[in-house]
């Protein structure tokens, strides 16, 4: 993977991670963030990633966003069943 693409995807992962915190709608952003994370980790080779903190934080935020989205979906289902 070229270095420019590695840096670009790392920073994109960071911003998508923040978007992932939006319940339900952020689920798609979380998936794209995790795809970017996986691609950078597996494709960067031996080169040093200056945007490593952005990549890591983006992945953590994406995961948190997935958890928020899942919780919101479960609660919505329970409300639907109860009603």
């Amino acid at each position: 993977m070229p270095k420019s693409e590695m840096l670009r995807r790392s920073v994109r992962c960071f911003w998508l991670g923040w978007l992932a915190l939006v319940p339900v709608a952020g689920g798609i952003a979380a998936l794209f963030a995790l795809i970017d994370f996986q691609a950078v980790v597996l494709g960067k080779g031996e080169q040093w990633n200056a945007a490593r903190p952005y990549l890591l934080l983006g992945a953590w935020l994406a995961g948190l966003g997935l958890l928020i989205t899942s919780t919101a979906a479960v609660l919505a289902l329970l409300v639907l069943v109860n009603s």
Partner: protein
Amino acid sequence: MNALPIARRELLVLARRPWVYWSRLGVGGLVAGISALTIFLAATGGLGNPASLGRPLFDVLLFLAGPLCLCAGPVLVADSLANERQAGTLGLLFLANLRSPDILAGKLIALSLPALQALLAIVPVMGVAFFLGGVTGGEFARTMVALLSLLGWSLAVALVCSTLLREGRAAFGLSLALGVGAMALPLLTRGWTLAGTLVAFPAEFLGAPGTALYHAREVEKNASLAVTWWAAVGWTQVMTLGCLAVASVALAWNWRDERRPVPPPASRTARRRRCSESDPLQWLARERLGGRAWVRGYTLAAMGLMCWLASGAPGWTATPWQVLGLVWLAQAGFKLTVAWYASRALGPERASGSLEVLLVTPLGGETLWRSWLRAMRGLFLVPAMLFCGWNLALAWRLVREVSGPEETLGFWLFALLAAALFLLDGYTLTWVGLWEGLTARNASRACARTLLRVLVAPSLVSLPITLLAVWGGAPWPDGLVLIGSLWLGLGFLTDLAVGAWTMVRVSDDFRAAAITANQRRSLG
């Protein structure tokens, strides 16, 4: 007996290990945190009056102390003799006019110290629980005796496994499996009428450590169980002394690290398969991993057992939630297997120096770890997917026995989320095991650290909180929902945090970690 020089040497080695000091702080901090939480709940009225503090505090601390005593042997002792045998220093000890009981006693005295220190942090607070009320003096004393018996038994079993087996991690695995089996056997046979059958005595003997711990409380309710409790303690001591005796005899015969010669592949097919492999590193990783038959056998056996229990085993009718609990246990066994195999990565190559040679070649570090990951995927992906699919099929079969739309939805949600967490846990364990296998001192430590970070840490946080909340007055069905939700949520967050961090470390710092590990090895 001339065990003190060995004990002194082992204590000096332990004194240079930072984890010995951190573990004291960690256990003390954990006990203080739990006690503070309990007192806070009592002060805010969640647990009623302070006189009812004693029982929940005692039970939660027992929940910490029991696994600590059980795992002390595998973690501290299991690889001690095996590593010395592989390094060739065991023979030198015999040349120094030491006998096998001296060596064993010295190792036991020194290596049991961290576990005793941890127990010393927990026991006084359990004593405080006795003074608060809800726990009688007899129960407290019986529990202490049972815990110390369990600790001694665990250390002795791990010592004999380390004496008999050549590899430290094999000793670790066997001693851990025996410990878990001894604790699980009384629970599994509860309610079964075994008296008069052939399995009565073996079940009573092998399950004695678990029986002593469980019956420490039940003697209060049923005085006739006192004989059972004393018998269990006695059998535990017999097993402990027996293990030490076997280890003493076996060590004198088994101190050399003799490797059996590997016969060359006889068939042309096997030779062709070796030559036609396109990725030699992946082939190497796959050959080193082995275990294909074991993984497949475990998966099929677990699936068969779950079907048999779900369809109604003789004398035991399982509710759908109980079957889900068994599924969770079978999944836990699979995850342990993944961690076990993943933590074997690169350790022997690093120890033998071949990792340095491979890093010097144009292959690079990335090729190495990617080959290992592909080998792990080839070994575990299909059984994991099969396992997951079978669990969901079982859930679909059992959901018909669940009543009410809300409970049905809860059952399905739990089954689906647990399946997703199972796959995520497996993925995280692979990466974390790879990193720990590269950086830990030995494979046993790598496996223990992998399990601690991925599987044990969420449980350590969620279970005490849930138990205290339930004792604080939450009704049991809500407590079950709380346990399930906390376990799923914390498990997911742990997998994500630890997994992402480890993936970045592996891809960025593989070469530096391998070089550091090699330097540490050459400095001793």
